[in-house]
């Protein structure tokens, strides 16, 4: 447990020091890389809540990532063009306020996760993997054919959204926002994993029958976990869209689902801080391997294959021992 704590603190410090050094030495590129890592980590933390704690192998989390992105895109687009999003059943104006956009992103992706979860959780195992994948693709194709918001070309937003008291266009200030959000989410997820709900969820993953025997319904535990998981990943999607000032159907692509899963696995399934380690390593690999060769995905694939075949428990399993059972 102690080793894991040191690793957590080291990671959080590293994620803070790198962009600060980059800021002092005027290298905004590294600040953006760190911001990407932080946002991907949030998406991974979302998935890890369902996958690591609940054992729900969702291959469709791009749906929530994309929904968060489009929540930002659509609200900002309407604020940009001074048109209402819709007028019925109530009037919804566009908005450039980041806080409001986050709220909408969280609510929309939570609702989507509730609906998708309610259907998908009727199935288990490989059916669950495939049905979540299919739901993700459903959003992907819908966003491509929905021409109002750019269809296949996506939707550019000219200025980053506003946060009270900060200049969000300044890379280091936007990084700070994302870092604080990450910290809050980590605290929230840590507390939830220690709560009676979190304990029950992990118990359900390990033995459904015993959980039923003490009077809990695994289905509702899973559904709540899946909804929270989707909401967190949706928030990451809104942050990611704001970072790029652009949303497109690629955010819904199943590659994104695969990548979010990679963050979780690289870091270590079921570790609260695991996805942060995984996302940071992924971004680092993308940057260094991408500099070596145009075809860096070959190396990424080989590395991932090695991790899956020969190591268990990812970075955390390697450095902090295998305290968390991975089944």
């Amino acid at each position: 447990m102690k080793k894991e704590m040191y690793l957590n603190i080291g990671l959080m410090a590293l994620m803070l020091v790198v962009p600060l050094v980059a800021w002092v030495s005027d290298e905004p590129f590294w600040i953006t890389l760190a911001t990407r890592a932080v946002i991907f980590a949030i998406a991974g933390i979302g998935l890890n809540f369902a996958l690591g704690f609940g054992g729900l192998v969702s291959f469709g989390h791009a749906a929530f990532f994309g929904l968060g992105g489009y929540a930002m895109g659509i609200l900002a687009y309407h604020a940009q063009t001074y048109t209402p999003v819709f007028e019925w059943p109530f009037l919804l104006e566009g908005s450039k306020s980041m806080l409001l956009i986050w709220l909408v992103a969280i609510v929309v992706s939570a609702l989507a996760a509730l609906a998708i979860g309610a259907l998908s959780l009727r199935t288990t195992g490989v059916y669950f993997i495939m049905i979540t994948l299919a739901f993700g693709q459903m959003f992907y194709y819908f966003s491509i054919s929905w021409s109002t918001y750019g269809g296949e070309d996506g939707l550019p937003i000219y200025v980053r959204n506003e946060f009270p008291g900060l200049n969000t266009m300044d890379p280091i200030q936007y990084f700070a926002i994302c870092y604080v959000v990450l910290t809050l989410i980590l605290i929230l997820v840590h507390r939830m994993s220690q709560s009676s709900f979190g304990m029950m969820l992990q118990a359900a993953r390990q033995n459904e029958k015993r959980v039923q025997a003490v009077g809990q319904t695994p289905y509702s535990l899973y559904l709540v976990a899946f909804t929270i998981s989707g909401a967190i990943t949706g928030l990451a999607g809104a942050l990611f869209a704001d970072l790029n000032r652009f949303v497109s159907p690629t955010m819904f692509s199943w590659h994104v689902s695969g990548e979010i899963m990679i963050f979780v696995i690289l870091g270590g399934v079921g570790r609260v801080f695991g996805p942060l380690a995984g996302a940071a390593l992924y971004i680092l690999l993308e940057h260094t391997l991408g500099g070596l060769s145009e075809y860096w995905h070959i190396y990424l694939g080989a590395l991932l294959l090695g991790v899956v075949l020969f190591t268990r428990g990812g970075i955390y399993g390697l450095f902090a021992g295998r305290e968390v059972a991975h089944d």
Partner: protein
Amino acid sequence: MHMHPNVIYKKETPILLMKSRVGKFKGKSMSAILFIEQMLNGLQFGVMLFLMAAGLTLVFGVMGLINLAHGSLYMIGAFAAAAVAAATNSFLFALAASLAVAAIAGVLIEATIIRRLYKRDHLDQVLATFALILIFSEGTRWIFGSFPLFLDRPDYLAGTVALPFGIEYSLYRLTLIGVGLAIAVGLYLVIMKTRIGIRIRAGENDREMIGALGVDISMLYTLVFALGAALAGLAGALIGAIQSVQVGMGEPVLILAFVVIVIGGIGSIKGALIGAILVGLTDTLGRFLLPQFFSLFLENSTATSVGASLASMSIYILMAAVLLIRPKGLFGGA
């Protein structure tokens, strides 16, 4: 439609009436022909999906493996066919190459990597085969470049044939339907009537037992994997001749094949065939009918866009509906 407020409805009525009248005068049979053509297109699409889904569902049924890299084998088949067609000018050689190269690639990855995954959980299988996709896609891009390759159907299959009721239909697509159905029948016979088929079915039921009875189980696994790979490669070549041969072509088809086997019931060949045809018809007819349906009460451009959006989601809605009623698919009872 009668729920529309009168005013709006009346305003649009004359236009609607005119349109439907033109349709009635000019070609009641015209739209029927179009409909039958779309049915055939859906059937052709479904039959090709079956070639993909059959391998996926066999591999899952016998080895318990979820193989995302199945789409890569489809792509490899198409590229092998395009390369051989360019070198020899023979479509039949190209098809043979697609079968052989995909089967060889299948045997290679089965023996080196896939074999280690049978006993792992589904999460490991998903990730490892996702890694294989990255390697195959980038490797193909590295060898062949990013531009699509050219693979055309042969001259003797170009043009159209006259079917009853005055329907002209593409000979090549009709051949695809024939080939696909023939393979479906062949696969059924192999699995139901031959010794190897008996072993495959026994493997689905009880892996340890057939090992104990002296069947070389790892040989059987390699064979099943190679069979699935060959079928996927063939599908890639056949479809490559009407679409384009390019990196990433396997992925949309892979996901559709997943939808097919989820609908049909994982492990069931019969389910794969019925699921594939259902998905093929739903997708094709959805794209054809939904925009027309919405144009009955929406203006044209909106109707096209709403119809197209819904059509692109139709098979996933179908899948969700099937799973609501039967969580293990239509034929996945066991």
